[in-house]
């Protein structure tokens, strides 16, 4: 849906351009953003309106072409036109990465592929790529058909194809500075809580052997958060992230065997605190289904899948940064999007002047090579 807010129109248009740009092209996006705002202000003789923003956007042109002028080689790569190489390769990585993350996560909690899909897979392993290819072909035919209907959309609205191509964009964004701060604070809090004697008392016997290792891992996670908060995304921090993800997978393999870690919770009856045995409660009340190990397996599955994804993304980004000659440490950027839209609270109280922007960039490193 097109908005009447000029900044939102520009933001929507840049979202479309972003789909076709390589990873790590936020510098180009910010440059284009400034260009569009200044051009819209010039057209509106000092005042930016929805009309002047739309005129500036129309002058800039088709998002595919703009992105290709910035990043494309202007040639085809195999059968794929240059402008589609970035979104397609990103999609491919996302599909493979998610598949790998799910498969590894599932196998760590002891679920086999056949259980996952509910049937035996015939002609393994050849059937897998064939099925993926057939499904991709079907998806492309369907989306191609829908895209025909998108032709009359304004420049600020994503086409169906772009929405599809844009799926992977979020997954590759650098860690936000607030997220990094959150990692730091939460790592410290949870790590400390795990070590509190009153909490240690609640663990199952099996988990008491490992809680120190989990707490240490959480503290290391806090250090990672601090590093990202200070340095943004750079090769050192990405390496730390990848190593910690590998460590977590190793730890998860052990923890899944340990099972649900909490045997007791504190309860209060008539003003007296006591330890309430969770497992005993299920057994004495003859409740046939004890959900804790399932919950634990699910938590392990999700965290391992996330760890796998982080390893994939970190490895890709480290390679990309090394190719661009950036070395190990530099002042990297953070992943907050430069939301040009007014925040909800400002819209509610009617703030007319300000625009929400996060300072996400630091100077000091050059843009990457056009990755074609």
């Amino acid at each position: 849906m097109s908005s009447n807010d000029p900044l939102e129109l520009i933001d929507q248009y840049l979202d479309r351009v972003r789909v076709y740009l390589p990873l790590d092209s936020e510098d180009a996006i910010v440059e284009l953003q400034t260009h569009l705002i200044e051009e819209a202000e010039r057209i509106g003789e000092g005042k930016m309106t929805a009309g002047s923003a739309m005129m500036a956007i129309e002058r800039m042109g088709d998002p595919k072409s703009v992105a290709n002028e910035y990043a494309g080689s202007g040639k085809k790569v195999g059968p794929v036109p240059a402008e589609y190489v970035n979104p397609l390769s990103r999609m491919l990585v996302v599909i493979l990465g998610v598949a790998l993350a799910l498969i590894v996560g599932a196998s760590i909690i002891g679920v086999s592929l056949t259980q996952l899909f509910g049937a035996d897979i015939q002609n393994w392993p050849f059937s897998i790529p064939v099925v993926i290819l057939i499904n991709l072909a079907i998806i492309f035919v369907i989306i191609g058909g829908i895209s025909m209907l998108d032709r009359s959309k304004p420049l600020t609205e994503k086409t169906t194809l772009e929405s599809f191509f844009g799926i992977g964009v979020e997954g590759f964004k650098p860690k936000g500075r607030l997220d990094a701060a959150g990692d730091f604070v939460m790592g410290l809090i949870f790590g400390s809580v795990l070590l509190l004697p009153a909490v240690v008392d609640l663990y199952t016997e099996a988990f008491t052997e490992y809680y120190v290792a989990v707490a240490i891992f959480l503290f290391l996670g806090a250090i990672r958060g601090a590093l990202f908060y200070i340095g943004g995304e750079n090769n050192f921090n990405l390496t730390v992230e990848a190593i910690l993800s590998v460590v977590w997978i190793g730890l998860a393999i052990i923890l899944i065997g340990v099972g649900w870690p909490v045997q007791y919770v504190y309860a209060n009856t008539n003003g007296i605190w006591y330890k309430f045995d969770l497992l005993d409660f299920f057994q004495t009340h003859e409740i046939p289904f004890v959900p804790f190990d399932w919950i634990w397996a699910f938590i392990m599955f999700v965290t391992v899948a996330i760890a796998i994804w982080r390893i994939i993304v970190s490895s890709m980004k480290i390679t990309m940064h090394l190719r661009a000659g950036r070395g190990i440490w530099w002042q990297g950027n953070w992943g907050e999007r430069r939301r040009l839209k007014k925040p909800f609270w400002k819209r509610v109280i009617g703030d007319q002047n300000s625009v929400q922007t996060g300072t996400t960039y630091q100077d000091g490193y050059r843009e990457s090579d056009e990755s074609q």
Partner: protein
Amino acid sequence: MSMSKKTQEELDRWSKEVKRGAVTLAILALLSKRRAYGYEAVKLLDEKMSFLALEQGTVYPLLRRLEKREILRSEWDYEDPTKPKKYYAVTEEGLKALGAMSQTWSVLSREMRDVIMEVE
């Protein structure tokens, strides 16, 4: 005197080739006097070099390429957080390249003028 279609086509083709060679020199010359951010550079070029008829689609990628080749360097300015500006300036290497290019251009334009005057 109106131009024939063929002459117009030939002129367009030739203009394109001349522009291609001139644009780097024009950008370096402008940025050697003072640093400028992308939009500013586009407008400056538009104002001072109307023959080149440069648009953002040409200028931004060229600025990026020149930066990558270390002929230009850039610096972000966040003074206005709504409109962060990436300022481009000519590097030492860029200034040397600009000097050599300007000399070549002077020789070329002088010789071209002589040749054209002979024709006229």
